[in-house]
């Protein structure tokens, strides 16, 4: 009996061990709502250490630290705009995957449309010129005679 209860205690202890370990990851999962907000906002930021990854996806130490910083700021009641300002104050617009529309980024935002417009103009001019070139011009009398003579010669030649 005593041995059975000891065994049971040991089993319970063994069972509880993984639970205790699982508890260690809690700071992240503590508040799923907050975590969702952190990841959604971090999606917009570039991880400066790996540059082509988002801050949400990166495992770089700096990204981990910054997500922690975001968590702290959100807990302190900071808005998404304030956190975005925190990021751009330190790393500039480069940290944003969607750069803001402003004087220095006009070319970036509207350049493609400019190119498209230029393409439309070039295509229009090209088609217009082509149409003019293709317009049928009636043959003059001397031209017609020459054509007939050439075609006639050709037919004769074929027949021979």
């Amino acid at each position, binding site marked *: 009996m005593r041995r059975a209860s000891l065994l049971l205690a040991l089993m319970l202890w063994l069972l509880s061990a993984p639970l205790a370990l699982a508890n260690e990851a809690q700071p992240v999962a503590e508040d799923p709502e907050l975590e969702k907000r952190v990841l959604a906002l971090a999606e917009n930021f570039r991880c400066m*250490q790996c*540059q082509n990854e988002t801050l949400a996806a990166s495992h770089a130490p*700096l990204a981990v630290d*910054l997500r922690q910083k975001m968590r702290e700021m959100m807990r302190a009641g900071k808005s998404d705009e304030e956190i975005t300002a925190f990021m751009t*104050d*330190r*790393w*500039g617009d480069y940290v944003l995957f969607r750069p803001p529309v402003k004087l220095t980024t006009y070319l970036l935002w509207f350049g493609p449309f400019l190119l498209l417009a230029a393409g439309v103009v070039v295509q229009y001019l090209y088609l217009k010129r082509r149409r003019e070139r293709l317009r049928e011009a009636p043959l003059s009398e001397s031209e017609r005679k020459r054509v007939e003579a050439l075609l006639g010669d050709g037919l004769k030649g074929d027949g021979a």
Partner: protein
Amino acid sequence: MKKFLIPLALFIVLAVFLAVGLSRDPSEIPSPLINKPAPAFVLPQLSDPQRSFKSDEMRGKVWLLNVWATWCVACRYEHPVLLDLARTGIVPIYGLDYKDERRDALALLDQLGDPYTLVLSDEDGGVGIDYGVYAVPETFVIDRNGIIRYKQIGPITEEVLQKKIIPLVKELQK
């Protein structure tokens, strides 16, 4: 002749864009902190964690803040250059030991020499974040009024030291 010139002109424009694009280092991003006040901080000193250092104490001096760590390989390349600079005594170099183990840092300075006037421990990397650090080593040149005047991303080479940092420091010290 004209028909031939247009594609040639387009090709040259494209080639220039590519040449410029390829010769730039994409990891170097202009810092928005240039010409802004250096973020103030209070940190424990590496040699004696009981004693703290306030960045405000540097008011009135031109100084360098060099962000480094023992785990940072590029910092080893930079180390002899910093030692050279320290030997000239032109400008005090303050080290920011970024996300590092104190014992490792002390051992490294003991082994390779210590170019720093003082080293500060930024164990959790909080000050690094305030300075927009993302590629250790980084070095900031800070003027008398506490304004960041230059940021070197990556190791200081002999060339950068001679052509940029020393002339700038001398200019700021005038």
